[in-house]
């Protein structure tokens, strides 16, 4: 296979295309040292070292779960949360502006509550009151502006809802101007037709829930945060968000739950929670145990509310809401249904444990890099990198001429493979990573140099062109293989032992070595075969 230069070329183009596309579509992520951002390493507080390894690992699992619950609070895209070695947690936030707030979010104690789920009909009467209070508090113009904001990024149908339906050709710009009133004649009685809040609520498929479309979430959040709206809610009732986004048809929604405001039990009464599988009915379940006092409260409450839903709320977000089937005392069990994977049960058990015992978390490492510093580094690195590449190209071309050109082509393929490989693995480029790249570029160039020098030697002892090239590749191979393999061994060890930046070095180096291997022994060779095509065995070559 791949005997002919043509089939080799097709393979090269194919592979380069795939990795090039990966690089183009995924993009190369920069590490925090280059991009700017915040890097936190957290550890469970255990000054006397009294905790067992398992207890620590469980604690880290819980902290991990808690921070994931708060992920939206950081206000950055794609925060990275990673467990390290069972006792540490790394949180990486790209481009964070408020460091103290980020630290507070990470270290704040988790708060677990059990609340009764009410029916949406309990809320119906209050909805028009909320609508009116929003209109009264914000005024029609600012609600319009708000609506326009949402419209600008989404569809115009929200405008229809906001303005009681009508002209679908109204654009964001028009809404923003005062002239919109003339264009939307339905608004003769604005106060009644305005339903800024309730128009965004869709009836949920679980009792006691509304579904809010993804694009409406910020607006609804804003309304809910207003004091006027909170006052307009019925006494002892609360609207609280669900944890996750759900897909219904083509659209994405979030649940908004109608709950009793006061929890009847909080997480500190919970002793243990474990996930398991009921072999008889083949379903996942969570078993939990409450303290004695907690068991009494729970028993009394569940006895009165058989058939109702019970919301498990962590940090203000509803995580799950099982139906109460029976009176439950100090020991209980939540059945997840037969189709549910064990992971979901484990996750719920984790949620319960997360709120049960507040874990004290220490920040043992904190790094921030301002965005300007990061940007300066990237700019400088780019210019330096370009000059470096230009120098390599210059040397190869003047020294090896046509063969140098082939090598430059192969190095071009190499660069695409390495960067595309990094993008595919989702690896981030850090300063140590650049070191790894330099070393592997060096090795890629070196491999070509080894081959060309060898070809020259073979030509010098009087071999025919074709034989010299064959022999050159053949003899250079052992040195290239051994050099690359030993370096790869080192890189893999570093990956195993290293943390953070050193790992970044190891990853880029490993990818670089594999790519340089392929580039020198396959790509350069293929280019050489193409170059030799049509030449007679004795024709001179430029190397």
């Amino acid at each position, binding site marked *: 296979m791949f005997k002919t230069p043509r089939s080799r070329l097709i393979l090269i183009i194919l592979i380069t295309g795939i990795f090039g596309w990966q690089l183009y579509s995924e993009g190369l992520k920069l590490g925090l040292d280059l991009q700017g951002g915040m890097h936190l390493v957290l550890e469970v507080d255990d000054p006397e070292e009294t905790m067992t390894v398992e207890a620590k690992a469980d604690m880290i699992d819980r902290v991990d779960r808690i921070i994931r619950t708060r992920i939206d609070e950081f206000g950055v895209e794609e925060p990275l949360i990673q467990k390290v070695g069972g006792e540490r947690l790394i949180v990486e936030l790209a481009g964070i502006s408020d460091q103290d707030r980020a630290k507070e979010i990470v270290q704040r104690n988790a708060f677990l509550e059990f609340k009764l789920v009410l029916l949406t009909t309990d809320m119906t009467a209050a909805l028009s009151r909320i609508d009116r209070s929003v209109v009264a508090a914000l005024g029609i113009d600012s609600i319009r502006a708000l609506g326009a904001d949402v419209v600008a990024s989404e569809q115009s149908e929200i405008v229809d809802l906001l303005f009681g339906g009508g002209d679908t050709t109204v654009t964001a710009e028009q809404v923003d101007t005062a002239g919109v009133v003339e264009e939307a004649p339905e608004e003769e009685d604005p106060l009644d037709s305005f339903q800024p809040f309730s128009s965004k609520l869709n009836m949920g498929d679980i009792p006691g829930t509304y579904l809010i479309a993804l694009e409406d979430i910020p607006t609804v959040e804003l309304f809910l945060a207003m004091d006027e709206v909170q006052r307009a809610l019925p006494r002892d009732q609360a609207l609280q968000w669900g944890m996750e986004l759900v897909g219904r048809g083509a659209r994405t929604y979030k649940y908004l739950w109608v709950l009793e405001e006061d929890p009847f039990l909080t997480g500190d009464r919970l002793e243990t929670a474990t996930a398991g599988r009921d072999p008889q009915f083949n379903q996942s379940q969570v078993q939990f145990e409450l303290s004695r006092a907690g068991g009494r409260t729970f028993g009394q409450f569940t006895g009165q509310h058989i058939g109702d839903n019970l919301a498990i709320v962590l940090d203000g977000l509803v995580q799950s809401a099982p139906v109460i089937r029976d009176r439950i005392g100090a020991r209980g069990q939540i059945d997840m249904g037969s189709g549910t994977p064990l992971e979901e049960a484990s996750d719920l058990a984790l949620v319960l444990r997360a709120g049960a015992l507040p874990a004290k978390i220490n920040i043992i490492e904190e790094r921030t890099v301002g965005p300007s510093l990061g940007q300066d580094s990237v700019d400088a*690195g780019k210019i330096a990198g370009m000059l470096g590449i230009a120098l390599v190209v210059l040397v190869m071309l003047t020294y090896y001429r046509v063969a140098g050109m082939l090598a430059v082509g192969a190095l071009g393929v190499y660069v695409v493979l390495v960067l595309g490989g990094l993008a595919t693995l989702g690896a981030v480029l850090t300063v*140590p990573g650049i070191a790894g790249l330099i070393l592997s570029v060096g090795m890629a160039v*070196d491999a070509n140099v080894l081959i060309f020098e060898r070809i020259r030697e073979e030509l010098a002892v009087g071999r025919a062109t074709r034989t010299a090239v064959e022999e050159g590749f053949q003899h250079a191979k052992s040195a290239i293989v051994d050099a690359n393999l030993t370096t790869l*061994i080192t890189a893999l060890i570093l990956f195993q*032992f290293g*943390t953070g930046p050193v790992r970044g070095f190891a990853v880029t180096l490993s990818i670089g070595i594999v790519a340089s291997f392929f580039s020198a022994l396959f790509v350069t060779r293929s280019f050489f075969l193409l170059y030799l095509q049509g030449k007679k065995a004795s024709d001179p070559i430029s190397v």
Partner: protein
Amino acid sequence: MRLFHNASYRFIEARRKAYFASGIALGVGIVFMTLNVVNTGSWQNYGVDFTGGSLIQIQVDENLTAGDLRDALGGADSPPITRFGEESEFVVRAPVAEDGSIGAVADTIEAQLAAAFGQDAFEVVRTEQVGAKVGGELQLKALYAILFSFLLTLIYLAIRFELRFGMAAVIATLHDILITLGFLAAFHVEIALPTVAAILTILGYSLNDTIVVFDRIRENMHTKGARKRNPVDLVNQSINETLPRTVLTSGTTLAVLLALLVLGGPVIFDFTVVLILGVIIGTYSSIFVASPALIEIQNRWGLGRVGEKKKRPQPATV
């Protein structure tokens, strides 16, 4: 264009001079490391990555000097302040309090600066705060990683070549790392994580260079009539044959690194310096340390063949 074509330098004969040069370099390094221990209590200028502590990098108004900052941070009691790259950027380092939160020191420094110059006179562009425990672990891990990679390299080379090739390669790499460490100690270069990556790069580069020469020695050992040749000649010939490649590869790598040094900016400056040094030492050691070591090992302990395939015709020795 051809460089060092048909060269025939007597490298191995010059090995005693090389030992002398290497010895001096190592000796000077050890002297500086000792001096560092006496003066600062640590043989290297470990950064906060390893010792734990706080680092704050600030960009200040042009008219503020290091002296002004020092006054603002407590005069004689001020934590060390160093300039970073540009005129108006400074780095303040401070040890982390025993039981305080790791952010406390940095917050204090920021508050002191704000009190002295006002909030707008400076901008914090980078902070690093590392607990002491993490730092200690890092040192140990880096050491383990290097030792372990030595061991595996040794095994790999013993199988692919012979045991003494592996030993010679490890000696050369160790030589490079020690000289680099001496240099770092002499110039008080801060040892941070990127510096460790640079040292590891040197390890890789030096090994790569050595293996290319060894590969040629191995090949020449298996040529006809090699057994009757003087081992020193054989090694010399191998080094000379790979000399064009050695010069070209090192030269190209150095050119790229120089570009990085001049244009790469202050963040990677230290790091690039270490790499440049490493490339020079690594090239030198593959010729003047690794190859002579091979000869010396053979002279003292014989051939010590491991992994030699019996089927092959008996190769020459070097």
